[in-house]
């Protein structure tokens, strides 16, 4: 077995350190440097100007920062703490994230190990199931668990109440633990699993073989060999989860707003959209605090990935599976049960609830109705929202992977100056919550000549959604590209190809499955997102997700649930077949040896995420 070692973590995920060549004095300026400068300026302007606008606005002490003459000072930063919701909201944000992470990380690592490194039954089908779970709209899952666990009227609570000696069901989805649970059931676990499983699967099995030959048990091998090797990708995935958490909104809003529980993102929304007097100043200060919080992630992540060399993938790599023995059936059943809870249960519940006159109330006369479906489908706003969503998701799915792969390629595989800056900008952009990015962009679109004309049209939404997954998308591509051996590009360049030709003819074919992955993530995100576009969307450009959220928050949970089911159908009905087809088409290239030495077997058709 031939083993080509690659220094995987050198650039994996985090900001790229300047290569040795960069430190050489008097390096001549290359064409690529100008390209990188242009990219940095464009991406930086898009991502940082809204941030700067918000930071500047946080120092605007006018009573209404949009109306009154601007006055400058730091009073907002002091005043924000007088809002009794701010402190608890920040603490709540940390608490929810902590518990979601503490629970989801070990569970997900365990599931990923089961799927990738053991002989569990139906591993591919189960892994695909987690894809479905991740694509499953969080809105639909949230509505489903509301219908199940709402105090008193939730289906599960009502069922429990029929048991002897039980007066009322014990569950309350409108609680801290309700939020944690629904976060886990929406994307807390699935997100980890779909990113970690390919990584674990791509790990060189010879390492584990060597461990076992040395007398280690399967469990000990996992703990002492597999996991230590995977520390960097696990951490990076956890960091992505943290970022995703900062961008999270719908679950916390739909549940927390019902019992006055705010995390920072829902409080920002509350301040800007719901409070009788919009409190932009407080909102931008709160956002600035999150910027500081996220700033701590970058050096920490860099420290972890650089503190040690991790050798993982080999050219002639082959996977070896740990036998589960008697636990094989139990493990399969456990994972399958979890998948059913993540997907099928909420779908059925929301589906059934959508035909009830009032979900959870079994004494209505009549009990069943199609009125909610008729109301939704006959609403002209729904038709517009559907078309808008399809347009936004489609464009985002096509453009985002192309753009992010170029960014990742430039960061990881070139020596252009400014790579670290671009990487830093992309990571930093994740700090900006969608809701404030939307607000910052609103102002940016209005004040920038040229962009001003775009306001109120579909274009701002397209731009926002294309860039929305820039951190995750670019880092996913970086994770693949760092495993790409230099010899491939060297061969291309020796043959006279420039970087662009090399990228198109060598890199793209290898990246194709990953591009499909990122395209699907973009599609799903565009179909589901609310926070980043809600201020930019007009009545003419509202999306299904915004419509669903507004209906649900306005008390029309049945109709909100129906739209979430339609979003789910869009995501699963369009995104997954495309992914399957694209993967199938990507296979010949993978098998042709073009991608050697890193991509040589069918096992690696599944994209390496980080």
């Amino acid at each position: 077995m031939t083993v080509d070692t690659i220094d995987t973590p050198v650039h994996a995920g985090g900001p790229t350190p300047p290569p040795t060549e960069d430190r050489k004095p008097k390096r001549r300026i290359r064409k690529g440097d100008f390209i990188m400068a242009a990219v940095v300026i464009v991406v930086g302007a898009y991502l940082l100007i809204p941030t700067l606008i918000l930071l500047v606005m946080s120092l605007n002490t006018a009573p209404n920062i949009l109306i009154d003459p601007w006055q400058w000072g730091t009073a907002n930063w002091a005043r924000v703490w007088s809002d009794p919701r701010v402190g608890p909201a920040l603490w709540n944000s940390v608490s929810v994230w902590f518990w979601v992470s503490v629970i989801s990380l070990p569970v997900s690592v365990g599931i990923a190990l089961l799927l990738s490194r053991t002989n569990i039954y139906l591993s591919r089908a189960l892994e695909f199931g987690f894809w479905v779970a991740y694509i499953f709209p969080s809105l639909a899952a949230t509505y489903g668990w509301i219908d199940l666990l709402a105090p008193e009227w939730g289906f599960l609570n009502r069922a429990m109440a029929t048991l002897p000696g039980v007066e009322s069901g014990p569950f309350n989805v409108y609680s801290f633990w309700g939020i944690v649970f629904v976060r886990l059931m929406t994307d807390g676990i699935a997100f980890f699993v779909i990113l970690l499983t390919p990584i674990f699967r791509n790990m060189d099995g010879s390492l584990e073989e060597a461990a076992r030959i040395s007398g280690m048990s399967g469990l000990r091998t996992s703990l002492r060999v597999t996991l230590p090797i995977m520390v960097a990708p696990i951490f990076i995935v956890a960091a992505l989860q943290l970022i995703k958490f900062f961008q999270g909104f719908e679950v916390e809003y739909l549940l927390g707003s019902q019992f006055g529980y705010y995390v920072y993102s829902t409080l920002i929304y509350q301040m800007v959209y719901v409070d009788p007097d919009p409190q932009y100043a407080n909102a931008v200060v709160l956002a600035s605090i999150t910027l500081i919080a996220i700033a701590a992630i970058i050096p920490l992540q860099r420290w972890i990935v650089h503190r040690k060399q991790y050798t993982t993938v080999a050219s002639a790599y082959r996977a070896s599976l740990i036998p589960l023995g008697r636990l094989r059936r139990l493990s399969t059943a456990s994972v399958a049960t979890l998948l059913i809870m993540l997907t099928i249960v909420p779908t059925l519940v929301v589906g059934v609830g959508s035909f009830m006159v009032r979900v959870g109330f079994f004494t209505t006369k009549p009990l069943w109705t199609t009125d909610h479906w008729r109301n939704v489908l006959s609403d002209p706003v729904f038709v517009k929202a559907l078309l808008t969503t399809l347009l936004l998701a489609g464009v985002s799915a096509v453009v985002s992977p192309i753009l992010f792969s170029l960014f990742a390629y430039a960061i990881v595989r070139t020596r252009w100056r400014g790579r670290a800056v671009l990487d830093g900008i992309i990571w930093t952009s994740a700090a900006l919550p969608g809701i404030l990015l939307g607000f910052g962009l609103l102002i940016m679109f209005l004040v920038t000549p040229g962009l001003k004309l775009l306001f109120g049209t579909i274009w701002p939404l397209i731009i926002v959604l294309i860039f929305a997954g820039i951190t995750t998308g670019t880092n996913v591509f970086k994770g693949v590209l760092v495993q790409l051996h230099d010899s491939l590009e060297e061969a291309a360049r020796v043959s006279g190809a420039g970087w662009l030709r090399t990228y198109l003819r060598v890199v793209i074919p290898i990246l194709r499955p990953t591009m499909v992955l990122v395209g699907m993530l973009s599609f799903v995100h565009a179909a589901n997102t609310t926070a980043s576009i809600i201020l930019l969307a007009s009545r003419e450009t509202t999306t299904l997700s915004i419509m669903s959220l507004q209906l649900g928050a306005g008390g029309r949970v049945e109709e909100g649930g129906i739209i979430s089911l339609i979003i789910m159908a869009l995501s699963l009905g369009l995104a997954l077949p495309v992914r399957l087809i694209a993967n199938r088409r990507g296979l010949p290239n993978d098998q042709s040896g073009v991608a050697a030495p890193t991509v040589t077997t069918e096992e690696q058709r599944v994209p390496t995420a980080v």
Partner: protein
Amino acid sequence: MKRHRSLASAAMAVMTILATACSAGGGSTAAGPTADTSALCTESANPVPADFQPAWSDLIAKAKAEGTLQIVAGTNVKAAEQPVWDCFGKTFGINVVVSTGSSSDINSRVLAERTQGRHTVDVSLLGSSGTNTFLKANAYAPLAPMLIHPDITDRSGWYLKDVPWFDAATKQYVTLYIATLVPNVLNIYYNTDKVTQEDLDSVQSLQDLLDPRWTGKIVVGNVAAGEADREATDAWMVLGQSFFDELLSKQSVGVVPLGGSRAYTDGILRSQWDMGVFGEFAISDINAAKDSGLPIANLTRTLKEGPDAAIEGQLGVFDPPANPAAAKLFVNWLLSKQGQTVYNALLVTKERPGSQSFRNDVPQGAIPDEDWNRLRTPGYKLTYDPDAFARARAEAQAYFKEKFAELKITP
């Protein structure tokens, strides 16, 4: 919503009953438009005096050329009045585009646009909170010069002899166009399974809500955050601080989040609370629950404090409007005899109980008899004092904010 509350005497309830019995009007009791009202939505149904016809025709032509009217409206307003706006669009062949949502959401978007000189909306039909925000931002154009229709300038067709203005200080930007007359100053919703007839009979006055029977059993909308603004102001004017001191301090009231109509209704339905007040924001959901046979109802009997009347419905035109002629045509049409006829005919009355036009020359349309007759009770005089209402509103808002914070009343 700015309004003047005009409490009739205790005898008014009796007179209302008498008037109902003696009413000559053959109005329906429908909760919404049921008759064929398509004939109302034509230009021929809008005759104007000959001397006004050229100006009116010119305005219609300009509005048609613009082709669109952009309305921003509160969710409840839209639920109640969408058929009226549709009728306007059908009458003049104008595409009516309605943007709805929370007041804050609308305020944020429109003000952000205006800051940069973009003007995309025409007419504002929001609650008092959202309207006040726009007023403070000088977002409205003076409306008084736009009111050119003889049906408006000639006040003989109105119960109020002066145009009622929401903006008490300036009296020129936002007018009011509907009257709401309800049985009590506080609308009471209750769980019919939990509240017995004996319980109901024991409530003869709103002060009876302070009885220990109701401790921990009452839910309120989040008045500290601006919910049920009109109702809260009216109640403040009638019941005074002492009532609310006791209600909030001793009765352990529950509160739902701002806009939490489902939480409010479900809380009553599943007996978390037996009774609710300050719930006008949840009226659509309460109606839906009631219509589907669930155990919720509202108290229709008038209590000791008497019935309540309000002038409300904030109507303003943005400065400048995106479609100036369409905006001007809309406000003149809506306040004309024809527009108010359409209002009474097409209003979804269950979404806005007790509301009707306060013109005296329009038919009953879909307005329920009891509401129609309240305004026409012999001896009853509709009045409106914007200054008094504005003062009371400010006092009530400050009080509720402070009291909720002091008692840590949170959803």
